[in-house]
């Protein structure tokens, strides 16, 4: 049994199937970073650090030289939630309308944390975000989404000018994404399609991102390393509910800071 202790939970196979499938369904649309950056792993829970391939000299004993390897420790993220035991009992009776509201909220929280770490950064975890690490000036996105294609085209031009090959992808924060979805340009052409043509790559809904970020999705620029991939574990139980959690471990590093342009809200 792994550290997730799932076997100790008072949950039947049908219950676990439902919880896992609900979590996958909620997480997949929200995990924007994984749709745009290189993903490696999962390496397992016991994997603790990403090799940075560098060493720093340290004071050696007399007559020797010494250096210490540099690594990026993985961050562990956990989002707790509970499920009523009465709801779990209903799953086994074949209920289709089980209340998994807390699981859905936990999935949203952990997806936002992952996206925010990748795009905005997480100083305490030693993670520099794409939007803060870019060497290019940011472009103001504004609220007039008719102008979005122009801003995105400017960002793409900037990347091309810096010698960063496409295709390019766009992570759009929720507010900007809603505006884009609601807008048709003159002649009824959806703005979404216009942006996709400018980019030549994917456009993703990115909760946790402020504004938007244009990135090269050519590969080799942004590196997400998964230790333990997203999993549900067991915490405790009482007479009314089972306490569970969503958990993952990961690191993120940037090989090519110039391969992105931030579009500020």
């Amino acid at each position, binding site marked *: 049994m792994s550290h997730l202790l799932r076997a100790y939970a008072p949950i039947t196979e049908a219950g676990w199937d439902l919880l*896992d499938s609900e979590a996958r369904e909620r997480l997949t649309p929200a995990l924007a970073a994984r749709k745009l950056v290189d993903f490696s792993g*999962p390496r397992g829970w016991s994997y603790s650090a990403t090799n940075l391939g560098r060493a720093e000299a340290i004071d050696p004993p007399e007559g020797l030289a010494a250096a210490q390897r540099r690594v990026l420790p993985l961050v562990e993220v956990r989002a707790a939630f509970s499920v009523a035991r009465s709801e779990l009992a209903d799953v086994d009776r074949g209920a289709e309308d089980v209340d998994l509201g807390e699981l859905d909220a936990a999935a949203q929280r952990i997806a936002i944390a992952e996206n925010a770490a990748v795009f905005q950064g997480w100083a305490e975890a030693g993670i520099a975000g794409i939007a803060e690490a870019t060497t290019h000036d940011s472009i103001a996105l504004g609220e007039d989404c008719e102008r979005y294609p122009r801003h995105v085209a400017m960002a793409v031009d900037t990347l091309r000018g810096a010698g960063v090959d496409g295709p390019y992808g766009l992570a759009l924060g929720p507010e900007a994404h809603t505006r884009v979805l609601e807008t048709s340009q003159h002649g009824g052409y959806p703005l979404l399609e216009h942006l996709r043509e400018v980019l030549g790559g994917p*456009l993703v809904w990115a909760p946790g991102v402020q504004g938007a970020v244009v990135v090269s999705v050519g590969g080799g620029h942004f590196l997400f390393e*998964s230790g333990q991939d997203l999993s549900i574990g067991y915490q405790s139980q009482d007479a009314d509910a089972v306490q569970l959690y969503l958990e993952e471990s990961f690191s993120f590093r940037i090989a090519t800071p110039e391969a992105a342009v931030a579009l500020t809200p």
Partner: protein
Amino acid sequence: MGFDSYHEPAAELPDETRTFARLCASLTEEAEAIGWYEQRMAVEPDREARAIMRDAQGEEFKHFSMDLEFLLRRNPLWREIAEGILFQEGDIVEHGEEAEEEATEEEASRGAPLSGGESLGIGDLRGHAS
């Protein structure tokens, strides 16, 4: 392996599966031969005879290793698990458990069905953009 040694009707098996099965049989035979030479050397009093047996056993080590490498190249999941166990210091059983868990999770991240792992198997989502 005789013709009756397949567990499924031979005519229904793809060529690559039959080749894989033949090499599995060879692997087994080489392992048996290694064990037999080990026993013979343990009871043989003649030093020169033991040296010949040791040389012959070395051949079997080579054959076993070649068979194994072939099979690992043909089965990525087996290779992945073997990489976590072979030539590692420390607790073999622990390495085995960890290697299996990590390898099956990686399979899931590539879209293969999850077997043995406990993660949600979400992994890499490039290609899933809206």
